[in-house]
């Protein structure tokens, strides 16, 4: 929404809002992708991204260097996420640390765009049947049962196929990112 912020009120608030807007626009996509890459579902990633941005704006992280601000946001998001993972906090911490390392290696400079480009290239190399299976599963939300019927496989077979496909794509992306 055209928040309260965009009303023609005093210039100090407007200037601050413009700075905040620019900050949000610059960092929101990369932070959200990072959270998704850690395993947060989309709704939770929305929420944590917003909360982390708010924390950063309240603490005036906007004035810091871009890389520092991005690292601050990821750490804040990590802490917000861990707060929700009481039951398996240790495991969540380890997963987050591993994801952070991967992010630093492959995505910290471009917010994950190169990874998506690599995926595009890997998808182009897949046989049609595999592409169809991925499209039906991820684009159309088809269940394992539906896929089994359409591909003339057992549900177990579909699970194995998807597992192999994902592994193949993973390796392909890693090769291209090297």
């Amino acid at each position: 929404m055209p928040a309260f912020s965009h009303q023609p009120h005093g210039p100090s608030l407007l200037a601050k809002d413009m700075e905040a807007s620019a900050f949000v626009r610059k960092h929101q996509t990369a932070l959200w992708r990072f959270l998704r890459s850690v395993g947060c579902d989309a709704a939770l990633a929305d929420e944590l991204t917003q909360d982390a941005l708010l924390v950063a704006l309240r603490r005036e992280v906007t004035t810091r260097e871009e890389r520092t601000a991005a690292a601050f946001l990821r750490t804040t998001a990590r802490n917000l996420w861990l707060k929700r993972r009481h039951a398996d906090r240790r495991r969540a911490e380890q997963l987050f640390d591993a994801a952070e390392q991967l992010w630093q290696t492959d995505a910290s400079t471009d917010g994950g765009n190169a990874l998506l480009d690599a995926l595009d290239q890997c998808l182009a190399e897949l046989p049609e049947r595999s592409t169809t299976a991925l499209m039906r599963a991820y684009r159309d939300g088809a269940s394992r049962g539906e896929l089994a019927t359409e591909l003339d496989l057992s549900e177990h077979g579909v699970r194995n196929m998807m597992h192999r496909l994902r592994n193949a794509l993973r390796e392909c992306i890693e090769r291209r990112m090297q």
Partner: protein
Amino acid sequence: MTQANDDAAKDARMEWLLRERIGNETPPDLEHAVLAQLQTEPTPVAIPNRNNRLLVAAIVVIGVAAVFAVSQITGDTPAAVSNPQQGEPEFVTWQDPALVRSRQDIEALPADTKQVFGINLDNDALPALLRLRKLEAIALTVSTFEAKRGGPLKPKTDPVYFTDEGFERLASMSSLRALVLEGHIKLKGHGLVRVVKDTGLRELTLTSMAVTDKLLAELAQLPLQALRLHGSQEFGDAGIKAIAASKTLREVSLRGCTHLEQEWIANLANLKSLETLNLSGIGSHTLFSGIRLSPLPEPTPGSGVTDRVVRAVAPLPKLRSLDLGSADVTDKGIAALKESRSLRQLGLQSITELTAAGAHCLPNSLTSLNLLGHRDLDSQLLKALLGRPNLTDLNLGWCRNPSLDAIEQLCKAAHLRTLNVSGWKLTDAERDRLSKLAAQINFGKQPKRR
């Protein structure tokens, strides 16, 4: 990193990539939600940082102890000390309201939730709020613009509104104290009046709304203590007369209501109970009129805040805070404030007509002055501020750099607590020199020196 963790992280990453590329899942545009939430929070007095948090905590502890001690001596309760001037309860301070976008979000909130910020809620979602029996403050906003992938903002084709019929179901929320509505242009009035009336609401903020004179006349009859009409439209002379007839209002804000005429605003001279008045960003002289993302069409600018308006409101006996930011006022108008005994905070940001002659007329009672964006802050103007013995907070951000000698003289004479010099081009030596002048210096964002 163990192999298992590495594999799990790579799996999660793969899932994200596939969902985004094939599943058409897109990163959200949170710009407006974040800004809207920021705007519901009070503006901090000073910039908090890691080093002064302990100091602030210590001051708070000492302050609480002092209040408690005074209450023991005088027999007052701490609550009664909260506003020594009026004995009235303070307005709600927004602190991390629960963010909700749907009925399901509301239903997932703990029963003791006190503050909610709702985005794009419809008639079906609102009744879910009734379960929250301790809810004190609600902000409800509509997302009417959207941007795809960082592109330009465009009007949304299907914004989600609620109506009076849906909204009035909140009338049974007896704990409600503060309500912020933004952009809900389908709300015409009777549902809102009923909620304000039945809940005993103290604070009402209507942002980017169509507010008619009739609605204001009905609201002004109710025991509201704060009425803020930020960037709202349609009301005029009759509406402001109705506000001025209120028996209870302590705070009024017409910030950004660019259509207002000076004759209409001057009616507020009759609101004797007024303590806080925000008249910033009003009228054709406003720097930022025309920049808005309101669902309402841009109104024709009125004459806005002029010397006449200042002369009208200056005698208000309880007026403690007055914001005239971007107003079309001159030294002659400012001179009308000279006799005020109550005025503590004054906003004169972006008023370029103010000179030393006007500054000489600022009341001695003033403790906080905002001159942000003044383009001609010369030594004479600063010297004129020397005579304000009670001045403790001064905002000179984004002013053309004045002489540091004059600033130094001013700070020593006035015993400044806070000084804002954001936007100044300073050398390290100048920065060090300024750092010694006030307890808290806000250097903010500074332009790069060539």
